[in-house]
């Protein structure tokens, strides 16, 4: 889908720019999918990869960080939702981990888990400003402790962060996924390959085959 929208609201979340747009038509988004958002500004050669952090009543919240040059009123050309998002199974206990301290990209996922009636534990070094009471916040360092508890695990971070945590965790049989946050300049259109990720089934493009991957499938750089 292609949309021309205006950035109607900007605010700081943990020191990073987050925003909100109005979408004229309802958008079906899976948590973990993303948009490519280009402003008309001549100093931005590439579209920014933007993850939704909320999708209600025609409003789409955009997770931080947004480009610092954007301001309220900036016109954006949006392409998306793109890629493959999380596949949250119907389970009772869900663990989410924000490896880089930004929790907003996981917000749609914990909302979905709560709707499905699951208990949610969020592992992070930085406590987010607003969070449903039902979500329990725990320090990132204690993530290995949930191995007996969680029936589903979702990591979110850069590829090196995801791979490093994968090597420290042992979740045999537990459904586990990772949102791999890396540059996706072409969104698959060019098959440029800069978003390449090595998996057990060969090289994959995060922009189309991800950015969410089965954690068990990911292989070292």
């Amino acid at each position: 889908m292609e949309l021309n929208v205006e950035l109607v609201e900007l605010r700081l979340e943990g020191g990073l720019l987050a925003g909100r747009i109005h979408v004229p038509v309802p958008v079906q988004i899976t948590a973990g999918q993303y948009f490519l958002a280009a402003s008309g500004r001549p100093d931005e050669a590439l579209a920014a990869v933007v993850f939704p952090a909320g999708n209600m009543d025609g409003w789409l919240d955009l997770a931080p960080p947004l480009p610092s040059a954007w301001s309220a009123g900036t016109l954006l050309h949006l392409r998306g939702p793109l890629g493959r998002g999380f596949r949250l199974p119907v389970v009772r206990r869900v663990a989410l981990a924000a490896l880089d301290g930004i929790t907003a990209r996981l917000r749609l996922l914990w909302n979905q888990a709560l709707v499905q009636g699951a208990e949610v534990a969020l592992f992070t070094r930085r406590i987010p400003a607003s969070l449903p009471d039902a979500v329990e916040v725990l320090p990132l360092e204690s993530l290995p402790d949930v191995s007996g508890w969680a029936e589903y695990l979702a990591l979110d971070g850069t590829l090196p962060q995801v791979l490093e945590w994968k090597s420290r965790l042992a979740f045999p049989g537990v459904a586990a996924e990772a949102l791999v946050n890396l540059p996706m300049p072409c969104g698959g259109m060019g098959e440029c390959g800069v978003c390449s990720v090595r998996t057990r089934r060969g090289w994959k493009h995060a922009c189309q085959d991800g950015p969410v991957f089965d954690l068990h499938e990911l292989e070292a750089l």
Partner: protein
Amino acid sequence: MILPPPGLELASPWMNAAGSMGFVPDSRLPFPHPMGAFVTNPISRKPRTPAENRTCIPYPGGCLLHTGLPNPGLRAVLRQAGVRWARADVPVWVHLLADSPAELAEMVRALEGLEGVAALEVGIAPTANGEDALALASAALGELPVVVQIPFDRADEPWLDRLAALGVSGLTLGAPRGSMPVPDGRLVSGRLLGPGLFPQVLAAVRSARRINLPLIAGAGLFQQAHVEAVLAAGAAAVQLDAVLWRGWMEG
């Protein structure tokens, strides 16, 4: 403007740059119609895996893209894309990446006679000097028209004046290369994309007019006015790159 030779006439000056639109033309792509030609991603004889330190680093006016030019190798590309090139409603230019003239000649033979393939574009490796490049260009010559692609900052080099006499049909002035430091202190090198390259590609087109070949301006075009300016300055065609991913810029 020098017109393309027979066999290489274009329905319009609009093309994409190698690496910008994948291996197969897709009519859903946001491209001005009619498209003069579709240029494939760079294809090597053997498969190339992504570069270990692949990355995309923004800087003022552009970004550095380092991918290692991954591709499954010519044989696999032909298997996957050959039929769709034949069916495409736009001429396909196959972009070839080769380490030696012999390797290139082998790839060229595999492409000759294939339906839909209108021309070969031969990428010159950053390490190749003029003699290497002329040898590569010669090795590519056969039944298909050959267009040579160089980074535009090489447009002043004297060996380019010999391409026309060899039988080459055109010259693409493509993305230049640059380097950037990465957090671990090492440097990463790759293609540069972005509107900040426009004054340089325009100057390169002017400089390359001395060469008796149709010129294709293939970097730094992000506004319609950029395209008009390079065409007015003597380019026979344009190749768009990252503007196809992000949409036109204002102004």
